[in-house]
């Protein structure tokens, strides 16, 4: 008899994610879908607003990664105010934004790994759900849990000092920034009381990587075999091929590492990328036009970034990158749980970059803004923690926004997440007499590896409950689970 599992939303939010898994009478998974159930209206909402409001307006999208939207919008508006396409800002403008961005990367990745994913590693996907959480981590490895909290706090402090404030920060404005970093602020971040200083963050980042690598070594089969599938990969890279999360060109590689998008200008993204609408989800499915809907979908995020770039321009992260690349003999890595490995290498790189930037005297310069000849279209692309983020605005002669198109990171990973859910459901549930909580958690582990922000994808109010439903061939609910 066919079955159905659901995870219901328990908060006040309207939008949420749903996973539906369909089983036939033999207990085999015949279909699965990760779908999103809130209408996206943000692009229409900003139409008619003055363009300079965009970097602050877009923070209404999501309270989880406002810095990413803030910076992507500011980059798009740099183009509109004639400040160039990423390389036209003053040194202090460019470096303050980068410092803000690395602070965001650091805190976002740390939260994801320590507090979301480490319980799965410490206790197993099918561990007792009572202890398979951060409370269990505290009991098992209290130092690790405290490090996660303090690293997260440090990243938030970097954001506060660069964006001006935690809520609706205004640090980035069209053509530059509205403040530099004072000596006092620099000293707090660089040499703050232990553990809140740059050196300690680098040290702890290395420790987090060692923790993951130790787990990987002891569980090679699980880590490598879980939701392992070939795909294309897309990300921003610096023009010389270096890892760069703030500015550069768009590059994509196929499953063998061949370039299928060869360092193209971000302003032309819509020549290369299309979004498909499917009638069962409000989240679109982006793909490379040249390869079509079936073959053109791609991964974004930490794994994709390390698959796409040629090197990482900080020494400690580069050493880790070389080890990461050697593991797949230089070929793109398709192992979903290796997202965590890549994420932690990015944590280390972020810590190194924060330390380097804090030692850079350019951050105390006063030439904050540049302007040039106004244009009527601007595209801002950055690598958000979850992956490539596109902001595209067009304005009229009255400076009002006439068009806005946002492709958020989680949307870029829509097809990969669906593929990972399908593979995991088949691997864990096919032919099983009973669907256990551990099996359903395995499906969540697959989604979590991509660190989705359903709030961004749906523009809900910063929360993201998930509903999982297991149905039979008659579409009758067998089981349901809400988180």
């Amino acid at each position, binding site marked *: 008899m066919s079955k159905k599992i659901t995870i219901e939303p328990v908060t006040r939010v309207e939008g949420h994610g749903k996973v539906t898994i369909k089983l036939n009478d033999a207990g085999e998974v015949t279909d699965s879908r990760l779908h999103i159930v809130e209408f996206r209206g943000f692009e229409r909402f900003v139409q008619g607003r003055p363009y300079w409001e965009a970097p602050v307006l877009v923070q209404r999208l999501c309270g*989880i990664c406002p810095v990413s939207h803030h910076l992507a919008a500011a980059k798009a508006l740099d183009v509109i105010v004639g400040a160039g396409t990423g390389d036209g800002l003053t040194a202090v403008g460019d470096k303050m934004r980068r410092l803000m961005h690395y602070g965001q990367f650091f805190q976002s990745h740390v*939260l994801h790994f320590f507090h979301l994913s480490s319980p799965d590693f410490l206790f197993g996907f099918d561990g007792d759900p009572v202890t398979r959480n951060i*409370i269990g981590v505290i009991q098992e490895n209290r130092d690790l849990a405290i490090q996660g909290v303090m690293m997260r706090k440090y990243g938030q402090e970097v954001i506060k000092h660069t964006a001006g404030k935690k809520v609706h920060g205004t640090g980035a404005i069209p053509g530059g920034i509205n403040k530099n970093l004072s000596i006092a602020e620099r000293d707090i971040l660089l040499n703050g009381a232990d553990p809140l200083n740059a050196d300690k963050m680098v040290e702890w980042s290395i420790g987090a990587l060692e923790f993951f690598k130790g787990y990987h070594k002891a569980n090679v089969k699980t880590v490598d075999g879980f939701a392992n599938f070939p795909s294309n990969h897309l990300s921003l890279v610096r023009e010389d091929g270096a890892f760069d999360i703030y500015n550069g060109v768009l590059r994509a590689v196929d499953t063998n590492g061949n370039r299928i998008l060869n360092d193209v200008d971000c302003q032309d993204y819509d020549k290369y990328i299309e979004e498909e609408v499917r009638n069962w989800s409000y989240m679109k499915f982006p793909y490379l036009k040249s390869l079509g809907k079936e073959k053109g979908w791609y991964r974004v995020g930490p794994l994709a970034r390390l698959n796409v770039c040629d090197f990482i321009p900080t020494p400690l992260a580069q050493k880790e990158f070389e080890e990461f690349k050697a593991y797949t003999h230089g070929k793109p890595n398709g192992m979903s749980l290796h997202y965590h490995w890549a994420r932690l290498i990015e944590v280390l790189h972020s810590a190194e970059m924060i330390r380097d930037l804090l030692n850079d005297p350019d951050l105390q310069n006063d030439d904050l803004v540049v302007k040039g000849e106004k244009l009527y279209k601007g595209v801002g692309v950055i690598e958000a923690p979850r992956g490539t983020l596109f902001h595209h605005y067009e304005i009229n002669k009255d400076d009002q926004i006439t068009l806005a198109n946002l492709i958020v990171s989680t949307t870029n990973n829509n097809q990969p997440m669906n593929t990972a859910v399908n593979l995991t459901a088949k691997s864990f549930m096919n032919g099983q007499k009973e669907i256990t909580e551990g099996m359903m958690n395995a499906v969540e582990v697959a989604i979590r590896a991509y660190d989705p922000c359903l709030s961004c994808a749906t523009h809900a109010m910063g929360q993201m409950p998930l509903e999982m439903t297991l149905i039979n061939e008659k579409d009758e609910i067998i089981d349901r689970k809400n988180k």
Partner: protein
Amino acid sequence: MATKARILVYGYGNPGRQDDGLGIEMVKMVNSWIEKHELNCMTSEDNYQLNVEDAETISKMEYVVFVDATKEDIHEFKLEKVDPSAKKVEFTMHAVSPAYVLNLCKDLFGKCPETYILGIKGYEWDFKEGLSDNAKLNLEQAYQFLTRKLANWSDIRDNLPITMLKEWT
């Protein structure tokens, strides 16, 4: 010598989503009140939502009042005591509940400040800044209630200037 803050008022929400900004607005009002009366024993924080690092922030406090907007079927506002709870409310944990933060504080830092949640009823949640008229009324009433509550807590009274004690007694 400056008095170390022992009481934290922490508002959270997204002010870009209309009444979801009630917690942030409350913090602005409480801040003015704190500054006006030089209440060094109190401090405030605001953010889009609560996060795990807030466990460290509240670990230094004796009293904590979280302030958030609510859709619950209540009258203007509601103050409830918070007990530690390990129950997650979100799939991804990018946002956590006051009870969860308190639980983390207890387990990680061995502290458990007396903690409350002040829920203020909101009505509109669109992509706009600014509170709805009804939410503003609720905020004002909640503010009067909260400041009176803070002032009448005996531990706080010890640090209040004489003028404040007269005002709130």
